[in-house]
Every structure is written in C-alpha cells, then in structure tokens.
C-alpha cells in the first residue's frame, strides 16, 4: 500500500513523536509513505474561519499534488483529516469550485476531485484490517485500560466527514481491542479537547480538557489515546495547566494513536518518542511490561 503522507504541521514540529511513531508503524505494516515537500498546512480550521474559499483552494492544491501522483492521502491528525475532507465536500458547490478553479488554473493546477483522504485510524482498521494487525502483535497491551479520544473533526459534521458514526463510533475501540488493550467507554470520547480556544481563552479550554480527562479516569482509564496531535497538545502538553485550573490532579498519560499500535507491534517507547510527553507514561508502560530509557 502506498499513500501520500500528509503529516501536518504539528507532527513536523512539537508533535514530532507522532511522526516518529507513524513512520515506525507504517514500516512495520508495509505501508509505503510517499512524501511531498510541497504540501502546505491545511489551515487547521482557522483559515476556514478567516476565508472559506481560500481555505478550500489551499487544500485543493494539496489534494491536486496527491492526485497528480495517483495516490490517496494519509492523514495523522483529526483536523487535517477534517479540513482536507471539507475541501472535497465544498468543491461540490459549483460556485466554490468556480472560484477555486479560477485561482488554480493560471498556475497550471487542476484538481479533478478523485483523491480520498484517509486518517491512519481508517487505514489501520479498514485497509490493513484488524485480523492482519492482530497477527503482528508481539506485545499485547493486556491489562491496559485505554480511553479512545476521537477528536471532533474526525467525526463531525458526520454527513460531511463520512464518519462511521458521529455519536457512537467504535473503530478506535475495535483497534484497541485488537491490540489487546481494554477500551474504556466514556461520554467524553466524542467530545472536544478545548484546543481551538487554548490561546483565545486558556482557562475555558483547560476546563474542557479536564472534563474529558476526568471522565476517562472516572471510567477506569489508565491512559487516553488520540488520533489528533492538537488534542494531544490540549490533553498532554497543557494537562498541568488544566489541573491547576480545575484545582485537582489529573495525571493521565496521553498516547498518540500510532504509539499504542507501535507498542503492541514491539517498538520501544523511545522509538515512539514517548519520553517527549509532558505527562510521564511510565505507569502505563509498566502495566505492559516495558519502559523508556531516555
């Protein structure tokens, strides 16, 4: 399987461990990542707020790059997944398509709309398939209770994102189950992490993050796992601030999706960048009989 790898900004910067883990897992599963140094940022939802048509055009350019190479796109971020998918959806509106084409055609860029945008979660559960994944598990995550945290844009709006179910998704839980972990069901798994307003009104964002972490903990989670590096920033990098805002300890390790997969497939915690997390993952790693060296 060969896919156009769209890492997004954060996985190339502060969320580098997500990129490391994705590469490790894809190598282990024989997924070939084609790289395109001309991919731009997806706009992260913020450019959509500033200028809807511009946002579609930026992403039509990204999709056209993959289309020229004859590849579907692999995303590792719920927001990138959402924005690239949204471009495909908005381009069905002839008025939007006309304006976008008007900007792209003079540059010799044409996007015909053939590219499918697939998040790693979908590639693992549908293209690789859970039986094949399960066959490669060498370190079952037995005993580890993990709360999947989907991230908004992977799911909603459901009619535009083509998600399995906006309210009761189960792909992530099925994946965790295949890895030997025990998925934890809690209301917060489909809620918001607060990230979009982390720099607009930090305390409100942190209260929202703390609500989901508390909910996962109340349902017995040893850790949460997320398919979105922006959720990871909110839940991990700012967890200490969230704890201070709500006035109680949170102390819950937060994994990136491919880190949980990598652990089950035998990667070392260091190869997956786990020592880079702000919240130590040691207690969760001890439960599956491993630890980080760095």
């Amino acid at each position, binding site marked *: 399987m060969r896919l156009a790898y769209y890492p997004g*900004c*954060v996985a*190339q*910067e*502060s969320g*580098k461990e997500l990129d490391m883990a994705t590469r490790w897992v894809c190598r282990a599963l024989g997924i070939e990542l084609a790289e395109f*140094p*001309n*991919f*731009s*940022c997806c*706009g*992260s*939802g*913020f*450019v*959509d*707020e*500033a*200028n*809807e*048509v*511009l946002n579609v*055009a*930026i992403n039509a*350019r990204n999709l056209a790059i993959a289309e020229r190479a004859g590849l579907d796109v692999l995303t590792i971020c719920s927001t990138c997944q959402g924005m690239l998918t949204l471009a495909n959806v908005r381009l069905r509106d002839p008025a939007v398509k006309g*304006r*976008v084409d*008007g*900007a*792209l055609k003079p*540059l010799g*860029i044409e996007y015909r709309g053939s590219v499918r945008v697939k998040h790693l979660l979908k590639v693992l559960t549908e293209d690789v398939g859970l039986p094949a994944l399960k066959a490669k598990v060498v370190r079952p995550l037995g005993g580890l209770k993990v709360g999947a945290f989907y991230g*908004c*844009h992977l799911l*909603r*709006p459901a009619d535009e994102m083509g998600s399995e179910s*906006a*309210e*009761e998704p189960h792909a992530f839980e099925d994946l965790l189950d295949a890895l030997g972990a025990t998925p934890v069901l809690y*209301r917060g798994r489909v*809620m*918001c992490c*607060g990230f*979009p*307003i982390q*720099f*607009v*009104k930090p305390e*409100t964002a942190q*209260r*929202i993050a703390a*609500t989901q972490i508390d909910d996962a903990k109340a349902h017995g989670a040893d850790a949460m796992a997320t398919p979105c590096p922006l959720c990871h920033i909110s839940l991990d*990098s700012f967890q*200490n*601030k969230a704890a201070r805002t709500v006035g109680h300890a949170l102390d819950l390790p937060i994994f990136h999706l491919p880190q949980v997969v990598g652990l089950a497939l035998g990667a070392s915690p260091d190869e997956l960048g786990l*020592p*880079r*997390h*702000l919240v130590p993952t040691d207690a969760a790693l001890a439960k599956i009989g491993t630890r980080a060296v760095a």
Partner: protein
Amino acid sequence: MPEATIPAEFEVYRFDPAKDRAPRYQRYSLDLAPHTPVLSALLRIRAEQDPTLTLRYSCRSAICGSCAMQVNSKSRLACETQIGPEMERHGTIVVEPMRNQPVLRDLVVDQAPFWQQYEGIEPHLILDPQHPMPEGRATSMTPAQVERFKETPRCIACAACYSACPAVSADPGFPGPMALAKLYRFVVDPRDTAARARLVRIQPNGLWLCLRCHLCTEACPKDVRPSERIRDLKELAIAEQGGTENGSRHAVGFKENIRDRGLLSEMKIVRQTSGVLGLASQAGQGIRIWRKKPEILKRPPPIEGLDELEKIYEALDTPPKEGS
C-alpha cells in the same frame, strides 16, 4: 397487523430540588413497538406506572421544540427519537434532562439562561427610523438574499444545541450556538441596519469561544447547522474588523503564517494571538514544553511551491474593509 413489541428498559433521571438531596435514576420496563417515540413511552410510563414523572412537551410532532432532553447522552427531541435503535445500540434507554440549564424537576429544566442569551443578541430587525421602508414593501428581499440565511429560520428554539455545547458548559458567558446562529441571520439580512454594530459587539462577547466542535450541528433536529453559521459570522467579523480579539488574531495570524512559509510556526502564532505580553505570561509553560519538545522554537523551512500559495492568496484573499 400490529407491529411486534420489544421489551424496553428505561432509566429515567429523577430529581426534585425541593425534596431530594441528589438525583437518582428510576427504572421502568414496558413492551413497546420499536417505532415508538421516547416521548410516547414516557407518557405511557406516566399514565400507567408513575404519575409523578415530570416532563415538558407539547406538539409531539417535532415542531414546538418543547421535549428536548438527553437520550443516551445525546440531546434530542424525545418525540422524534425512536426506542428501537436506542435499545439495539445501548440495551437500555437512559433519559436525562438537557445539560447547561438548571433542573427544575425530573426532565424539566429552567431555560432562562438559554433565553437570556437569545435576548442578548437582539433577535429582531433593527431598522433605520430615518429611512422607513416603503409602504407594502417592508419585507421585500431577493431570493438570493434570503438564500444566505435559509437554514436559520428552521430553528424551533428547542435548545438541544445549547445542551450539547461544551463551550457553554465551561463558560456560561458564551452565547451558545442558537443565539449566534440567529445573530448571523440578522447580520446578513439586508433590511437590518445594525449589522456592523452587531459584529463589533459580539466579538469580545463570545463569538471566538466557539470550538467548532460541531456538536451543536449533530444535535440540531432541524439541520440549522449552527456551527457553520458561527463560522460564517466569524468570517464576516474578520472582513469587517480584521484581527481585534485573540480569536480573530489567531485566525488572521494562521492565514498569514501559511502565506509566508506554507506551514505553521507554532511559537509565532502564539505571539500573534496573545501579543508579546500574552506570550510572556505563558513563558513558564513554554519553557516546560520546550525542554521536552525543542522544535517549538524552530521555524519550519518554507515549503516548495510557496509561490503558488502566494498567487492563490492574491486571487482569493481580499484585505479587510477600509477604516477598520
């Protein structure tokens, strides 16, 4: 032939603040056809098993918006949520009052916060008394003008969106999805003369607290798509004023970041959003993150083909209006 029935199990939130110390969940069992609406089931429970069960409803036809409540944690109209699929997915039907509004009794909430936010946006046309509309033409608009807010009049003010909104839960000052969707409707109404004032006033008062999580759009029984109307409102606010708030500066800064390098520079966007003082106030956290993730200080190299992006911006990105 009547439809075959299935055993339905309900766990209904019961709470009378005047008498009870804490809420409890009461179980009721009854056999029902799978197509039975949750509201009809609750009314049967009240008629046949427990006359004290308190709920609000009126039309039973998804028009009046009175019976919004949480069914298995989702904010829904009880009259159009059927028991069959709920039983199939959950094995039980947990019925709770809407969130983000205080419980008066059982499934009935005090909707005052919701209505106060709605009143706060002045949900009526503001006309110019100096230039009254010509006699008999007071409502004249072109179809294209009406098209711009065709979704919003479908709203039945059921408050399901308000109940589903995490920003309301975390910050009661946030106007909520319905009030903002309605505000959008007046801002783009060509007869309203206060559009600019409305946009200027809403920016420091909650517009930028929307998380665009789209939970409201999923909850809305009338497909008003409040989160998308809020997005529309944000774009209009930026077109009117540029970056004046943390939220609008963040959106404008993001757009500039991508034009300049093609990728986001994490530290730069924080500085653009929060200003130098804001950045300084977050220095402690920045250092904590930097120790683990030194890349936050690095600016990414420009992408290949940046000139293409520049041209796309030239074609599609117009600067904010003069004088703002």
